[in-house]
């Protein structure tokens, strides 16, 4: 049961009124398996606030029209709204004037746009693509396949046993013919946030561009691509209170200019002759066909929602949650948790195993208690190999989670122990 006298618990030191925030998320009021619903699978996707859902409904009900095409009022409104959300997102991530926001289906597509457009053109036999063993498959398999196709090879930023990076000899890695670096801003398994600034500055000293996978990071932290100085940044709307099927590729103009589009068709051309075509300027050149217009409306509402609450406050609240979680975890001697012990380099993701109980069994018992977690290898088999395990249970938190949710998780784990130790 959610405790009724939880004022001191919900008003965490970030000053956020979590009880009030929870009211914005219709899903949180539901029960699952007959128990009050505890959602701790935010790493997979976040729940959606009413504001986001309503923004999509408003587009469909009030000014549904294609963009960049109609000469009538509703198309004009939709186009204006679409373009203004592009500017809103650029502002949200601190994009500099020579950077562009391209709408995609999500992180996976964003990475593939860069692999196809920049990678295929610039990476050849014998070249090195530098990634890491803690990448999500989206930022791993994509480069692995390009390496196979081109006769290039993958190399890895050295990882320590806890899944953090050893950057001591980073500079020496560039003695290899490194052509491109692709790295995560936050591990979806451990929540580890590498020192991106060092990686990017080092790569740039060697003239190598860097792509950042911010799928996990962007929903919880302030992003400033100008400060970070990355060349590409990818993230997904659905992990940051936005709808599914919409994501972002941020890219530096000088690199985007030399890239081939990933897709061809309408909306991205200026003039089509019999045998040749000329293409629109950036960023539209990379958005062939009718985009996910409703998704963009939802993403705009999600950015407004998160900014209304404040990214700093969200990050601080989650820091409090992960610290509390790790403190509670210490009460369980048979619980092994993965990731760096240093909380300051970690987002609110808690990956663990309980004794020798398989993660699927833990997840299944938690499900019966109304608690949603993810189990298995989380689309990240290389890091599982690094840890020498087949999988983990993952509880990943977001702004609407509170201390009660964490307490219920541990009550659920007590239940798991009860079943397996009898």
């Amino acid at each position, binding site marked *: 049961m959610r405790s009724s006298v939880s004022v001191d618990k919900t008003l965490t030191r970030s000053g956020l009124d979590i009880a009030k925030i929870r009211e914005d998320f219709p899903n949180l009021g539901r029960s699952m398996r007959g128990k009050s619903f505890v959602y701790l699978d935010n790493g997979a996707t976040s729940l959606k606030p009413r504001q986001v859902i309503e923004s999509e409904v408003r587009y469909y009900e009030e000014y549904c029209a294609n963009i960049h095409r109609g000469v009538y009022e509703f198309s004009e409104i939709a186009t204006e709204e679409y373009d203004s959300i592009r500017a809103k997102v650029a502002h949200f991530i601190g994009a500099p004037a020579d950077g562009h926001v391209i709408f995609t289906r999500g992180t996976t597509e964003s990475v593939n746009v860069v692999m196809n457009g920049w990678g295929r053109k610039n990476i050849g036999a014998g070249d090195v693509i530098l990634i890491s063993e803690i990448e999500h498959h989206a930022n791993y398999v994509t480069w692995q396949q390009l390496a196979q196709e081109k006769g290039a090879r993958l190399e890895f930023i050295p990882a320590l046993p806890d899944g953090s990076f050893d950057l001591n000899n980073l500079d020496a890695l560039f003695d290899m013919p490194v052509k491109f670096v692709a790295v995560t801003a936050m591990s979806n398994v451990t929540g580890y946030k590498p020192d991106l600034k060092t990686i990017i500055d080092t790569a740039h000293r060697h003239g190598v561009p860097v792509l950042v996978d911010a799928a996990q990071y962007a929903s919880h932290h302030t992003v400033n691509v100008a400060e970070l100085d990355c060349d590409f940044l990818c993230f997904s709307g659905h992990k940051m209170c936005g709808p599914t099927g919409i994501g972002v590729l941020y890219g530096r103009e000088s690199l985007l200019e030399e890239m081939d589009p990933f897709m061809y068709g309408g909306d991205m051309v200026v003039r089509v002759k019999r045998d040749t075509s000329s293409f629109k300027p950036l960023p539209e050149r990379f958005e062939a066909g009718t985009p996910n217009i409703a998704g963009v409306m939802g993403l705009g509402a999600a950015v407004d929602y998160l900014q209304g609450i404040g990214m700093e406050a969200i990050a601080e609240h989650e820091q409090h949650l992960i610290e509390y979680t790790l403190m509670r975890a210490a009460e369980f001697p048979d619980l092994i948790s993965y990731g760096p012990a240093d909380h300051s380099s970690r987002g609110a993701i808690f990956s663990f195993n309980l004794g020798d109980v398989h993660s699927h069994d833990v997840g*299944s018992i938690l499900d019966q208690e109304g608690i949603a977690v993810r189990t*298995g290898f989380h689309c990240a088999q290389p890091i599982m190999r690094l840890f020498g395990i087949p999988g983990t249970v993952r509880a990943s938190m977001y702004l609407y989670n509170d201390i009660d949710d964490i307490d219920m998780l541990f009550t659920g784990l007590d239940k798991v122990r009860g079943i397996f130790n009898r």
Partner: protein
Amino acid sequence: MNYEEDLYKEIILENYRSKKNKGAIEGASFHAEGANPSCGDDLELFLSVNNGVIERITYDGIGCSICCAGANLLCEALTGRSFEEALGIVAQFKGMLLEEQEPDFDDAISDLEAMQGVKKYPVRIKCALLAWNTVEGILNDAK
């Protein structure tokens, strides 16, 4: 019944913990691998066969309790059987979990009925059946 009685009853946990049929068989007559990538179940089966009879059958690998219990029960139930008999038991076991068939196993292998409760938990059915689908492949290929 609640999930503790369906999924985590004593007999299932005993079969999950049993090491009796766990490990590889050197020079096995048949060997096959099976995996459920989404949940991390990853098993290998080993059969040693003599004169058309399964003399010994073991499994190795990693799986959840339901998957391993299913594998151990399979090893117990198929030891000493002809391929024909084994296929009959596999069909009955799958029928119990995938269709509306009421199980009617011989007394010697009536423990298999303990898995019937898994039917109520659709995502776990593929765990219970992993070893059974794998052995079915071996038996059909060998026919």
